[in-house]
């Protein structure tokens, strides 16, 4: 009986295969994805936001979204409390103490936009098994196709920003999230939230321009005067205005987080106060895909494993699995 020897052989072969796979990730490892040179996005400057929520209303109209009442039934307001499958953009507020001073961490308040950040290397796209979440190779917009979607909600679970949302109240529910008004771009329009923003707190533009603009603002001295563009930064379609430079927190949120996002944010209050948790620079999708490509790249490892397993099974297959002698095992002995 050489079962023990076979066991060892198998264990060794299996171990070698795993070790081989672990030793060769360099070949298949992938780092963070790069941002497309023509990628578009948003720059949200919390200090410029006055909380008028014109962007929330414009988003509803532009995306033809229904009423979304998620306050308690006896409240006579329809204000959406958070993004849902029927609300793609909300303005939230940070409050401390009496909340009298705008953009002050202590005793103050500050506004924050909550909508899809259009990651450079999105987890939702990596998670989606049916290519319903796709990143446009040129604009970098993370778009959703409900006709492809199977409703597994892996994107909902995977997004580190909690953005894709599913409609649990519908028997044919779909995912809902901001798609940067990509359906309006053929007509020369851009993100409705930026189009209507009266102060330029939400600014649309090419990611490279937006990043430069964010760096420009961070380099300014608080209290000085500067111009704040509005609408589409790259097109300059709306007049800019002059204002006082606020005391920015020296952090462009979305520049490095999970490999960068195409919507970036500036604020005068630390981002963790808005509930933005610190995130690593390495994208989660690159980690997941590196692992998958290491194990399954070219199907090499599974095919080798199948070969070994099939060979061993063929050799060890007891005679009694063949129908002629179905009632005895291959080994001798008695009971």
């Amino acid at each position, binding site marked *: 009986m050489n079962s023990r020897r076979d066991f060892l052989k198998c264990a060794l072969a299996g171990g070698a295969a795993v070790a081989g796979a672990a030793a060769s990730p360099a070949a298949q490892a992938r780092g963070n994805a790069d941002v497309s040179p023509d990628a578009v996005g948003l720059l949200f400057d919390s200090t410029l936001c006055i909380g008028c929520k014109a962007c929330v209303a414009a988003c509803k109209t532009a995306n033809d979204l229904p009423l979304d009442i998620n306050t308690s039934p006896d409240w006579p307001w329809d204000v959406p409390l958070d993004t849902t499958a029927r609300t793609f953009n909300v303005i939230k507020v940070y409050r401390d103490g009496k909340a009298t001073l705008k953009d002050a961490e202590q005793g103050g308040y500050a506004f924050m936009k909550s909508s899809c950040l259009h990651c450079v290397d999105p987890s939702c796209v990596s998670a989606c098994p049916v290519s319903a979440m796709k990143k446009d190779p040129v604009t970098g917009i993370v778009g959703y196709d409900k006709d492809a979607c199977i409703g597994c909600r892996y994107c909902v679970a995977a997004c580190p920003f909690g953005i894709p949302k599913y409609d649990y109240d519908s028997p044919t529910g779909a995912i809902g999230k901001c798609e940067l008004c990509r359906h309006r771009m053929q007509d020369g329009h851009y993100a409705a939230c930026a189009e209507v923003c009266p102060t330029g707190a939400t600014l649309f533009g090419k990611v490279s321009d937006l990043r430069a603009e964010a760096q420009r603002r961070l380099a300014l001295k608080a209290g000085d005067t500067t111009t704040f563009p509005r609408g589409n930064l790259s097109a300059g379609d709306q007049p800019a205005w002059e204002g006082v430079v606020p005391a920015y927190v020296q952090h462009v949120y979305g520049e490095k987080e999970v490999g960068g996002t195409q919507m970036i944010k500036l604020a005068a209050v630390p981002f963790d106060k808005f509930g933005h948790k610190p995130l690593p620079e390495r994208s989660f999708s690159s980690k997941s895909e590196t692992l998958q490509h290491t194990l399954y790249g070219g199907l090499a490892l599974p095919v080798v494993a199948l070969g070994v397993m099939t060979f*061993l099974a063929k050799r060890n297959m007891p005679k009694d699995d*063949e129908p002629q002698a179905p009632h005895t095992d291959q080994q001798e002995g008695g009971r």
Partner: protein
Amino acid sequence: MSAHVHVAPAPVGGRLLNAVSFVCGVLILSAFAVLALRFWGGLGAVTNLNDGYPWGIWVVGDVVIGSAFACGGFSVAMLVYIFNRGEYHPLVRPALLASLFGYSLAGAGVIFDLGRYWNFWHILWPGYASPNSVMFEVAACISLYILVMWLEFSPTFFEKFGWSNAQRKVGRAMFFLVGLGTVLPMMHQSSLGSMLIVFGTQLHPLWQTMALPAIYLISAITIGYAVVLFESCVAAAGYRRSIEMHLLTPLSKVMLGMLGLYLAIRFGDLVVRGAIATAFEPTLQAFMFWLESIAFVLPLWILGTPAKRANPANLFTGGAVLMIAGILLRVNSYLVGYQTGDGWSYFPSIPEMLVTFGMFAIEVLAYIVITRRFPVLPREDHAPAGQAA
């Protein structure tokens, strides 16, 4: 291991309608009633799912845990055919039967959790399917494995119906089916762990690790043996058959070996990453981690000596505790350790649980019907009245 000649499998016989099958029937009907509501009113009508916890027990229970419990067939077939331990051959058919139903129901169960189920075929359709997605890998492997298992098990039906030609053909390809039936579960059981990697920092460091595929795979194989111990004891008690102690006692030792490997990987990883420190914080996650760890370690004590392994009660308890450990690992990593943000919480609703119970009831009922009517369990030499130890 004295007995190497095994009696042929034979139907157990007996009545199909009894208290157990009646309870199963009631549970199955309630599950279908809930599902009717789900398809009428959407997932929100019957579940407590929300955007913070978009996956509940239908995914974690029916699919992730259900398929791990269905690893008995794979674990035993691997032992018999790959590691050439022919003495365990009588355990293959019953284990494969349980696996067949576990997986088929996990596959079917996915459909009613899918929000847009009519598109389900997209996951395997070129043009839609996305190989970068871990879920694609899981779906492709599980679908193929269900097919392979039905073929692996088909001789049982062919034998019953006397289709010797078909039986011969499948018999000739059996070595390849066994090969596939070993590699495919290895792939998707590890991927059920890999699915969590993209969750990144949303998953507590006690569970978020690149070792997840190894942790899930080794635990699934171990649980496969635990399920065989559990099932054999329950089948013996339920059908008043003698327990196959000459097989189960050495099998429990194999299980302990796998369990040792599992614990080495699990704790080695926690120590290397330094995540073990978070197990001493006063959090629900740390508490659940210790509960999980105790359940994994306990069988080492329950089945620690040859004398203990010779006692059927210990085999049953050891198997059951390890199954609980497997449940805890999966519930912890998919739900307890998953923190998507403030203000979200999830606990399954009663209707949600009814569906999960209904799914397990289908498995139990199918196991009863098939073992009573088809040649699965080894033939008892003496009358079935022989009371089990």
